[in-house]
Every structure is written in structure tokens, then in C-alpha cells.
């Protein structure tokens, strides 16, 4: 997909779809959205659809940061307390490291 060659309406529609898609537990989609449309939204001369694209990018970025915070917190908690949780910890674990408590 070459953004250069897409008409602006299509770019807006694509950005919007990526934004909406990210609500399905897909922070990676939001990340792709931000990275892909960043140049379009902030570094290009203004065109009609640009403010909307900007707002989508900003919202995607906020959602992404939120998800990153949640995941980081959860991972930290899990890694730290996994051993102490005993059975629940094992139940939640996909792989259990060998040779440690």
C-alpha cells in the first residue's frame, strides 16, 4: 500500500478503520496506525482531511499508551508474584521456567 498514491478520502477512511479496529484488543493495530499515518498527519502540508487524521492518530496514540501501561503493570506483577501465587500462578502460566522456585 503506498500512501502517496491514495486519494485523501481513502487515507482518512483507512486511518479511521485502523482506529476503530484497535478497539478489539489490538494495541498493535493502533501502533501501526500511528506509525504509518504520522507523516501524513503532522509532516505534510495541510489538506482538508488532515485535522481528522490528526485526531485519529492522537486517539490511537492515547489508546496505545494506555494499553502499554496496563500490560506492563500486569507483566510486572505476574513475573514478580508468580512463584508466590502457587496454584493460581501455575494455572495462569503458559511456560514455567525450570530450576527456579
Amino acid at each position: 500500500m503506498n500512501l502517496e498514491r491514495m486519494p485523501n478520502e481513502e487515507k482518512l477512511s483507512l486511518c479511521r478503520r485502523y482506529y476503530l479496529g484497535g478497539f478489539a484488543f489490538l494495541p498493535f493495530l493502533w501502533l501501526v496506525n500511528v506509525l504509518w499515518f504520522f507523516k501524513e498527519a503532522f509532516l505534510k502540508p495541510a489538506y482538508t482531511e488532515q485535522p481528522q487524521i490528526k485526531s485519529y492518530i492522537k486517539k490511537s496514540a492515547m489508546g496505545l499508551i494506555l494499553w502499554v501501561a496496563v500490560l506492563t503493570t500486569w507483566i510486572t506483577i505476574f513475573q514478580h508474584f508468580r512463584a508466590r501465587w502457587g496454584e493460581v500462578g501455575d494455572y495462569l502460566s503458559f511456560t514455567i521456567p525450570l530450576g527456579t522456585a
Partner: protein
Amino acid sequence: MNTSDSEEDSYNERSALVQCESPTIPSYNQDHDMSLPQETDTKRRRPVSSGLDEPGPVERERASTPDGEEEELTLKYGAKHVIMLFIPVTLCMVVVVATIKSVSFYTEKTSQRLIYTPFEEDPNSVGQRLLNSILNTMVMISVIVVMTIILVVLYKYRCYKFIHGWLILSSLMLLFWFSFMYLGEVFKTYNVAMDYPTLVMIIWNFGVVGMICIHWKGPLRLQQAYLIVISALMALIFIKYLPEWSAWVILGAISIYDLIAVLCPKGPLRMLVETAQERNEPIFPALIYSSAMVWMVGMADSSNPDSADERQRNEGGALAQEGVESEDDAAQGGRRRYSAEEDLEEDRGVKLGLGDFIFYSVLVGKAATTGGDWNTTLACFVAILIGLCLTLLLLAIFKKALPALPISITFGLVFYFSTDNLVRPFMDSLAAHQYYI
């Protein structure tokens, strides 16, 4: 690890040469995809799907240029394309070799086999082993041939929905199931604790964004990255589940089949390409790696680069013991397109079928498995790249669809066996006697 699931993808790729045309005649691209559709039925089967890429006629407009200049431009683009293909092929092989060297899962031989290679290789008797590997190869190749023919028939009778569905199923399988297996093994190797919620998030994101990028619209680089990753995953599965000798014989046989199917007038892939050309439409979404996406403006044909990067994969695998089936379609096509728009020379980039990626990586991966040191692996790697170069050169000369497998695989096989049996003992002796040359 689930031992009950094994999947095999097979696909054939061809690289097609696009015909460069002089300004007065319309140019057309020929794409050849060879994909082997594979289907797994209730038993074990490996479906192989082949997909063909159809190049639509491309109008090439140029201001009147003398032939010499045309030649020069062709060669210039040819050289650029060689580099554009080297990088993804190298990346794919690097991923496969890195995984093989670090994650032992993919080199552990299990007694599970894919359903496509039902004969067990008995390590005790050379003759028996050879016979069984040849039989395995015959089974595999016949599955592939059947799949290709089914694909051609489906295409001829315009069963597009079926083919699309097949492709989507294949990529789903690949993106979710195989990557899940892969991640599990990597975590086990590095002794990392991983919890289910995080894992589900990772796999879900990876898979869904992959499906979006490959089958719909996404950034080009991301699409290319996903295709490389998928090829690597497939190659790893092949490396794990194909028996030793069968793998080598299959590699050889697939190159021969590729050659026949693409170049013979009655070859299924050639027929597919011609049908697609007659209908003037792009071939169903075959998975092809495209190095550039150029929007065609003012082109006579409506096929656009969008559909270029799609891959079909068939995987079907059932373990001999467990009878698990999975289905995957694999399609490969390779093609190169040159297109010009109006007064601009726009390079459409090069397309290479995913099957080619996969089989190249299988060859190098197996060299990494069995070779004791890096000599063999590097030799095979270099051989494949040389073969690819030659294929692209031939493409520029002949300007029609060419199979990408035969030359590279032949070189790879020759280099592998000669390095393993001649060069390595030689180097070892030299090192043992501390004799430097």
C-alpha cells in the same frame, strides 16, 4: 508441545519474468505462481495449493527510446531487483537458521511424520531408506500435482470464493497456530515464564494485524515482514517434520516439477497463467512477496499491486501416529513486473513467490541442522543467492515466466553435498594439522 499437530506447507514458486516491451507494443507481465494447494482431509494429507499470479497487460509507454537505452534500463532495473530480492530471502534464511541453532525443538526428530510422507526411514538399511524416501517423495509430489490441477480447474470454472476461503484459512492457520507453537518453543528454550493472558494478547495482535496486512491493506514494509515471517515458520515446520533423506529428495523433485509445470505448454501453472491472462484479471490472491508497490495510473489493466502480496499456503499435516489433520494452502508465485506509467518509468518491483522463500529456507535450514559447523550453511546460502541471481538474469533475458526453484536448489544441493563430504573433512584435517592455506 503438541505432538499431534504437524503441518506441512508446500509450495512452489516460480519467478516470472515480465516482458519489457518497446513503446509500440503493449507490454504484459506474466506471473507465475506456483502454489501447491494442500488440503488435509480427515486423514492426513497435505494439501498443496498453487496459485498463479496473473500479470495483466501492462501498458508501457515510453518516449521513443532507442533499443540500446531500453536494454540499459532493463538491466539497471534488473540489478536493482536482484538486490531487492536478496534482502528478504536473506532475512528469511537468517531467521530460520537462527531458530534452528538456538531452539532445539525444530531439530529434535520425533516419530511423528506428516501424512504426506508416510514411509518411515529406517536408519539401519541404506537401500530401504533410499527406497522409502523416494516413495515419500512420490507421494508428496503427487499430492502437489493433484492440488495444482484442482487449483487450475477451480480457477477455470471461476470458483473464486472457494479459493479465497482456502487462502484465508491457510493464512489463519499459519499466523495463529504456527506462531503459537513457535513462541512456546522459544519461551521454553530461554526459560521464560509466560502467562496466558499476555500470550493471548500477543498472538491475537500478531495474527489479526497479519491478516489485515496480508489480505487487506497495510504498510508495505509490514506486509513484507509478515510474509518473511510466515515463510520462515513454514520452512521450520518442514524442517522438523520431513524425514532426513526424504527432505533432500523432495527438494530435488520439487525443482524438477517446478521446471516442468512452468515451462511446458501443458503444465498446470502455465495454463493457469494463460487463463488469467485471457481473462485479463489478476490471479486469485496468491501469496507473493512484492518488493514495491506502485500504483498504476492510466494502465489498461485494472490489476493493481494490491493483490500482489498475498500468499496462499496450504498446510496439511497429520502425524502418522496421531492422525491430526490440518489444512493449509500454500501457493507461491513469483513474478516480476515492470511497468511504466505514462512518461514515468515506475518500477513495480519484483515479486517472488512465497514457496520459493520456503524451499530456499528449508535447504539452508537443513544444512544448518546436519552440518557440524557453519561452512555448509554458508556455502548453501551463497549457492542459493547465486542461483537467484542467475534466475533473475535469465528473467531479464527471456522476459517470460520462469521457475525460481530449479537453478538455486540445484546449486544448493550440489554445494551442500560437496561441502559436507569434501570440504569439511578437508578443513578439519587442515585445522587438526595446523596447516594454514
